[in-house]
């Protein structure tokens, strides 16, 4: 299949290639990112002449991360993942897709498993965040971590922190999950090495 194009046609530079994700996030981040505002923002962006909300501001969020109080000055378009890894140097939480499609960035928000890349930093204001770093202290590790080691429920280990946080969210609610329940709870965590069967064994063995 070949295609001949006339060089006299307007050149396509990357500036014209369409709305970048960053510009979208910039636009959304001015107001508190509730679902309603996000929906409104999307329909505005699709309208041809709708102006993007201007400017990025700094904002202060008060939050508790792993039991410690923080007062953070963030840009309104930063994601929670940006804040954890880049601003706070907490690199246990991993970035793999940055698009809410793999679960490597799973953390707990008020005890519930969420994707850090899908939340704005603003979303953690007055809320509690738990990351993988909270589950161990020196040589002491969480029973979930011990189970993962014992069952060799990992290979490259890059998805492991997110997988463990999702597991923790499940086990905190349901300490004796069935295999089907484990699969449902971890369906949002991709392990490309596919250590899945050992992961299932590890999670079902924690409280057993």
């Amino acid at each position, binding site marked *: 299949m070949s295609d001949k194009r006339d060089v006299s046609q307007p050149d396509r530079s990357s500036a014209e290639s369409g709305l970048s994700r960053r510009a979208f996030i910039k636009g959304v981040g001015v107001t508190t990112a509730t679902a309603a505002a996000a929906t409104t923002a999307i329909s505005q962006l699709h309208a041809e002449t709708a102006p993007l909300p201007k400017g990025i501001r700094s904002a202060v969020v008060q939050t508790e991360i792993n039991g410690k109080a923080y007062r953070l000055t963030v840009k309104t378009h930063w994601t929670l993942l940006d804040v954890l890894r880049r601003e706070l140097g907490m690199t246990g939480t991993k*970035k793999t897709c940055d698009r809410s499609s793999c679960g490597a960035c799973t953390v707990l928000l008020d005890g519930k498993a969420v994707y850090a890349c899908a939340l704005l930093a603003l979303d953690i204001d007055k809320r509690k965040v738990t990351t993988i770093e909270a589950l*161990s202290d020196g040589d002491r*590790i969480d029973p979930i971590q011990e189970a993962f080691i014992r069952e060799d429920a990992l290979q490259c280990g890059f998805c492991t922190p997110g997988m463990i946080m999702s597991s923790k969210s499940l086990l905190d609610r349901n300490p004796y999950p069935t295999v089907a329940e484990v699969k449902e709870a971890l369906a949002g965590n991709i392990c490309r*090495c596919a250590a899945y069967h*050992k992961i299932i064994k590890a999670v079902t063995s924690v409280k057993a």
Partner: protein
Amino acid sequence: MNAEFRIIGKPQRRLDAFDKVTGRMKYTSDYSLPGMLHLKALRSPYPHARIVSIDAQRARALPGVRLVLTQKDFASVTWIPPQPAMSDVARFVGDEIAIVAAKDEETAIEALALIEVKYQPLAFVIDPEEALKPNAPKIFPQGNLIGGKPVVLSRGSIEKGFAEADLVYEARYSTPYLQHATAETRVSVAHWDAGKLTLWESTQGPFELQRAIAKALKIPVSKVRVICEATGGGFGDKGSPGRQAIYASTVARLTGQPAKMELERDENYLAATHRFPVICNLKYGVKKDGTLTAIQAKVTADSGAYSIAGQAALSSLECMASVYRCANMRGEAITAITNNPPTGPMRCVGHPQGTFAQEVHMDVIAEKLGMDPVEFRRKNHVHLEDGDQFRKIPFTSNGLAECITRGSDALQWGQRWARKPQTSGPVKRGLGMALHGCRHGSMLPVMALSGLVKVNVDGTVNVYTGATELGSGQRTTMGIIAAEVLGVLMDDVYVTAADTDMTTDTGTTTGSRQTNTGGNGVRLAALDARNQLLDIAATELKADKKSISIRDGKVFVGSSEKGVPLEDIASKAPGGVIVGRGVMRPPSDVFSHAFAAHFAEVSVDTRTGTVRVERLVAVHDLGRTINLLGAENQIQGGAIQGTAFCLSERQRFDTPTGICVNPDHLNYKLPTIKDAAPVEPMMVESIDAVGPFGAKGVGEPPYSGASPAIANAIYNAIGIRFTELPITNREVLARLQAGQGQRGEKR
């Protein structure tokens, strides 16, 4: 498993599991250094275009931008053929044409939008068979056929073979573009200090990278240090040096600031390497008793714009040349360059493609002969005495027959397989199987093989291996081998992997080879260290060296039960130093071969076209199991990836523009935990003649047998033969609705 070993073959905890489960392991993408610049690439939106001009003035003027580099900045840089460091002709959508280095990623991305590029779009071709036609646009001056002519393998007389056949069957098979989709994308962090470059890299080949960077920057190899404590997934993408490494290194040197280049996920899907698509035209001849008389194959591979795997099609053709005994064989391997993304090695390079084609072909022939597929394989597969017909060398081990028996027994094939199973109801069940054999798992004559072992004054041990830990457990495997040889406890062994300042080259961690290569290196180094310990012990304990043994960290004389702590001996080393060195030149005429048999049971819901793998028995001849948990993990993980090769993964390209339409995890269809086929790993130990303790590798082979076993099981279930991958539920449903597969009617 083995009573004769204390550590080998027994479950051992992964040495880096603690750091990985706590989030403390530092991957390259976790690194951040003070003053670090972030690099982003401007990528071609065209599959083929000349870069007429680049105006980066506005980009350079953006506050926070430190540098913008274009092709002319890399014109004199030697990179890895066939890929230049940067091209002035874009050859695929996503090809790098400029690099911005800025204080943070956001500034770099903003700067990209300010670079004005004048492209001259050129005619492009994204179909390999079109690319080989005489009037196809030439992507390189020497034409689109790599090497200028097909690679031909030939033995016996193919004409004679077909003349002897009672039945000849010909068919075409094809497999698509895939991507490794490693959890950690390609990433480099470079730091230049007083003439020395330190490069943290997510890699499978630290020494290859070290040499390539030294050559590119025209500095001594001794002044380049590559460090990789853990790679967040490789699967073959990171064996060859990636462009992000030379970009980061160049920026670090030019600016004196640390430089990091981390590909975003969509960039990784575009510009990292890919599994090459393959078209196999197979024509086999058999006698009515099932003996193969002729194997003819034409394999065409689409290597994309850059073929990192070289003669890619040849690696698929190898399957037809070596798995079955046949005196008459003729094969052609044709690798075509196109304007698709670059391709390279991906788990079991070329073999999943070739094995899919061959094993479906064998299944069809078995049916035509009225033979049980397993019996047909038994009649023709290679045994130890047949040797490697492709390379004309002996096998160093061959456990294929046992793989077939054990897999067949596990699935109860003999009792349960029926040519046309009758399952009532809309969900149909079927059984299928496939064989595989390859030289993955072998030392390679062209590659280094070495290891270092140091025994400390307290009796603990440091092991240094050039192998990288990408999840297959190399670090642990090397520790196991060292501990077994020395007679120490695993707890007393610390393994340093992949640091070019401290470890020695033992080949890339690809090709399932490190158990064999790095393993032999560490084994030899540990033997050397042990020998030094025995010399000291003989003096200290006033005993005959031959009567001394070391077990669980204690030194024993003869049959005495009372052992002396190893540190009492180690601390007496002359100068306090015990260093074991292991270096070996792999023989040039010896390859270990891995063998496998996969047996699948599937159910197909004829209402939705959904295929479920109910059981996948994966039996692997790995010579000797060294790292038991690691081997199980590799077999399960590789086989699950292989099922996704069969059922879901495919990179799709828009034909009029050459643009990839699914460069993301959502639409590329990676298997989740709910999709994971239940894989039952089984290990056959044929005790290889050259591997350490008889071991061969097993990282890649599990990928290959899965897809044809499943495809054959689907046929058994619903009577529809799929010759193209992936077999999605949409494809299954479409064929069912077209009336195919009705038992007793047309097939």
